[in-house]
């Protein structure tokens, strides 16, 4: 990770140094893959065979629903998912009543009422999934200075996308090498830039009870939650692939037609 390389001719160098100083002072070593002491390159990860890859790829509804369970039971205690509303859960195969039931497990702040007071009420389908924190400052103070990033766009916001997230979630099983100096409060993970991460190991065998009887191994949960987060990043992918096929067929035929017209128009010219 090349962080402190100066860019000649730009003010950016000093801005960047300043920014890095602020980051270090705040003790944030967790943000956006930018780590102050990220001397070591992160390990390469393998490409996983996701069902949403390819020209006809679609999300796997069962995996998405399991992934939501993992998010809710494991990730949601620290990570917000602020761009997703409960109504969106209908898109991943929950019935409207199931989605309403999920929403009713949450309370959201609403108001002001007639007296001008804010009040709590049960969440509805139209509400966003509430964040576990009131704001970023609370999130940092609870998490030892590290800000757990919002997960709504995490798959698109990381180089490597779902493969990186999947590798990272599976990357906790290894012990740190003997000569590796692990900072206090950090966990070793070879896939994270700098190989140490503020997020402690999140997934353990059977951390989640799947409704469909799937065995909740760490790898299974990592796959499901990555699948779910890929959907959260790009919920329109299914529709996009479906429509794309029709559009491509139409355009190829149209271009073929144009080609024929051109050939016939120019026939007597050569």
């Amino acid at each position, binding site marked *: 990770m090349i962080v402190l390389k100066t860019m000649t001719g730009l003010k950016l160098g000093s801005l960047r140094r300043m920014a890095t100083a602020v980051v270090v002072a705040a003790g944030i070593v967790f943000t956006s893959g930018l780590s102050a002491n990220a001397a070591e390159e992160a390990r390469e990860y393998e490409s996983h065979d996701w069902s949403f890859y390819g020209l006809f790829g679609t999300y796997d509804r069962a995996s998405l629903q399991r992934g939501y369970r993992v998010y809710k039971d494991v990730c949601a205690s620290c990570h917000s998912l602020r761009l997703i*509303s409960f109504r969106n859960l209908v898109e991943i195969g929950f019935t409207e009543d199931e989605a309403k039931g999920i929403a009713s497990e949450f309370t959201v702040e609403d108001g002001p009422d*007639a007296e001008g007071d804010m009040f709590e009420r049960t969440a*509805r389908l*139209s509400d966003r999934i509430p964040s576990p924190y009131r704001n970023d400052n609370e999130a940092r103070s609870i998490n030892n200075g590290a800000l757990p990033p919002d997960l709504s766009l995490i798959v698109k916001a990381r180089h490597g996308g779902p493969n990186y997230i999947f590798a990272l979630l599976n990357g906790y099983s290894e012990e740190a090498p003997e000569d590796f100096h692990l900072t206090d409060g950090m966990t070793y993970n070879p896939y994270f830039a700098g190989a140490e991460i503020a997020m402690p190991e999140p997934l353990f065998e059977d951390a989640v009870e799947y409704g469909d009887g799937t065995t909740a191994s760490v790898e299974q949960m990592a796959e499901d939650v990555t699948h779910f987060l890929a959907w959260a990043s790009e919920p329109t992918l299914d529709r996009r692939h479906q429509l794309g096929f029709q559009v491509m067929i*139409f355009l190829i035929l*149209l271009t073929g*037609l144009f080609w024929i*017209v051109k050939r*016939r128009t120019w026939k007597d010219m050569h």
Partner: protein
Amino acid sequence: MADSAQDDDGVTRRDFFNVAAVAASVVGAGLAAWPLINSMNPAADVLALSSTEIDLTPIEVGQSITVVWRGKPVFIRRRTEAEIEQARADDKASLPDQELDADRVQNPEWLVMVGICTHLGCIPLGQKAGEPRGDFGGWFCPCHGSHYDTSGRIRRGPAPRNLEIPEYIFLDDTTIRIG
């Protein structure tokens, strides 16, 4: 189009391909326009925000409140006995938009309707004490002089229809949800 050899049936083959290419282009442009036009329809989050819950306890008999639902005013009136009787009596009067009072309320005491004049979209008067309520004791639209009765039905003036009743349910005796 340049000339080309004619087939036996009098239609040139180049003509056919030309017409097909132009037609396909026009169809394609039309199909491409639809997403653009459709994008101006209400977005999914707007459609989802379509219900409002209202606590009725603070409203006294003979009082009205105005609440906002989908950005529009909704009139909620706790009608007096006299108003209810008047509304029922008016069922037999000559109405431009024939409707029974019983069909316009779920609980006769509570009249819930969208407070937008069906003429050109102004907000009728009659919600607050002291406002003109028209010749039929209900609401009066100052824009073009439409008179509504105690059931919100149009009685006189240019408005074509009665004030619209939104979809709503009583969650319990003192709470309704509109939408």
